[in-house]
């Protein structure tokens, strides 16, 4: 039962990370590539960390007392990913717009001339 949960979490994480890389290749623009490469990796990494947490908790329940440390540290890594990844994506998008990269096939640019 517990292994099926770990398999499902790992499958969701791997599939979303692969989709992030494929979108990074196939999208035409900086902003759409940022959309693919940041949101999908955040979602996939959440599920990989959840698989690690469930595995550590299961080993701890079965008598390996030191395996709870893997769960706790994976939780802190999950918090670090959740805090840093969207902030970095916002900084990259702002820098790309300020350095003069235009969106491809865009008609209206709402941020033109704004500081």
């Amino acid at each position, binding site marked *: 039962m517990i292994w099926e949960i770990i398999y499902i979490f790992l499958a969701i994480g*791997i599939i979303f990370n692969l989709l992030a890389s494929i979108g*990074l290749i196939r999208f035409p623009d900086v902003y759409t590539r940022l959309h693919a490469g940041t949101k999908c990796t955040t979602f996939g*990494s959440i599920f990989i960390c959840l698989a690690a947490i469930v595995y*550590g908790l299961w080993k701890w329940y079965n008598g390996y007392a030191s395996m709870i440390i893997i769960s706790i540290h994976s939780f802190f890594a999950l918090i670090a990913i959740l805090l840093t990844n969207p902030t970095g994506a916002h*900084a*990259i998008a702002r820098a790309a717009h300020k350095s003069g*990269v235009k969106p491809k096939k865009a008609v209206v640019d709402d941020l033109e001339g704004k500081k």
Partner: protein
Amino acid sequence: MNVFMLSLVMLFISIAIAMVRVLLGPTIPDRVVGLDTINTLVIAGMILFGVATEEVIYIDVAIVYALLSYITTLFIAKYLEGGKI
């Protein structure tokens, strides 16, 4: 073979695909986006390797790597904006 090791191999394939965008990106922000994606995938791979070998030290390294790669991304973004650091 451990299932976490198998997932790690799939993550390596994903990193190799993302490396193509870093090598042939037309503009500099494209390369930065590819680098940011590779950083997140490496963090996930470190967590998987730590669980597969049941060593806690790799997950600690993953936490520190997450914070340092965030500082690197902000630094490059600030440099591209042209402001003072």
